């Protein structure tokens, strides 16, 4: 199931996203939280230290919209780009905003 959360700055979207993700994780579901912000705060809201947050690698666009060069598997994508958080939610930093409108 893919759940999108959208809202203008200041609405509390990121706080709410983190709480929703945690709520699913508490039910024992495998949760992937995808932050599409170039200034990612979601990881921090999921309990990741700021230092680690800054090191979360950005998923290359070729894997977000295509199949890459065929050497990476779906599980490999999560292993390589997903970062586990203390709240059991795996975070993926998908895209810089500067890339978001491209293509």
């Amino acid at each position, binding site marked *: *199931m*893919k*759940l*999108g*959360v*959208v*809202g*203008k700055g*200041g*609405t*509390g*979207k*990121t*706080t*709410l*996203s*983190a*709480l*929703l*993700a945690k*709520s*699913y994780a508490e*039910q024992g*579901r*495998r*949760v*992937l*939280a*995808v*932050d*599409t*912000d*170039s200034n990612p705060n*979601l990881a*921090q*809201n*999921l309990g990741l230290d*700021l230092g680690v947050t800054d090191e979360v690698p950005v*998923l290359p*666009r070729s*894997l*977000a*919209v*295509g*199949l*890459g060069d065929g050497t*990476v598997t*779906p*599980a490999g*994508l*999560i292993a390589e780009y997903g970062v586990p958080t203390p709240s059991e939610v*795996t975070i993926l930093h*998908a*895209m810089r*905003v500067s*890339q*978001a*409108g*491209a*293509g």
Partner: protein
Amino acid sequence: MRSLLGAAIEEEADVTLVDMEAGIEHLSRSGGTLAYADVLLIVMEPSRKSILTGARTLALAEELGIPRTFGVGNKARLPDDAEFFATVAGEYGVPLAGIVPQDPDVIEADRLGTPLGPDKGAPVRAAVAEIVAFVDEQLVQAG
């Protein structure tokens, strides 16, 4: 369009939550994997402007073919704002998935830049759990 991210979402996660910072309109142009959600939640504040923005996002989501879109009334000072959300969202045709109360614990965590502690924000957590149950119900109904 198939993408490795799409496959990872299908195979490696039960729930994928996409924090759509750039907005659905931007994400739809970027290949779609992240734009096309099964359920879209629009977070709104208790103001007419915010709910109107929500209504516009809802229309865009429908254009993009997102099958289920709901508003969430956040930062609600109860009980007045619950009624405000219900009334104004109704006026603009935004169905609500839930109302989340304003909570001093959340405001404090925001100020400190820390996650909400496990013993904090019980009313907010309860409201979020209700939204999770509501979303599950929508998906069950959809089959």
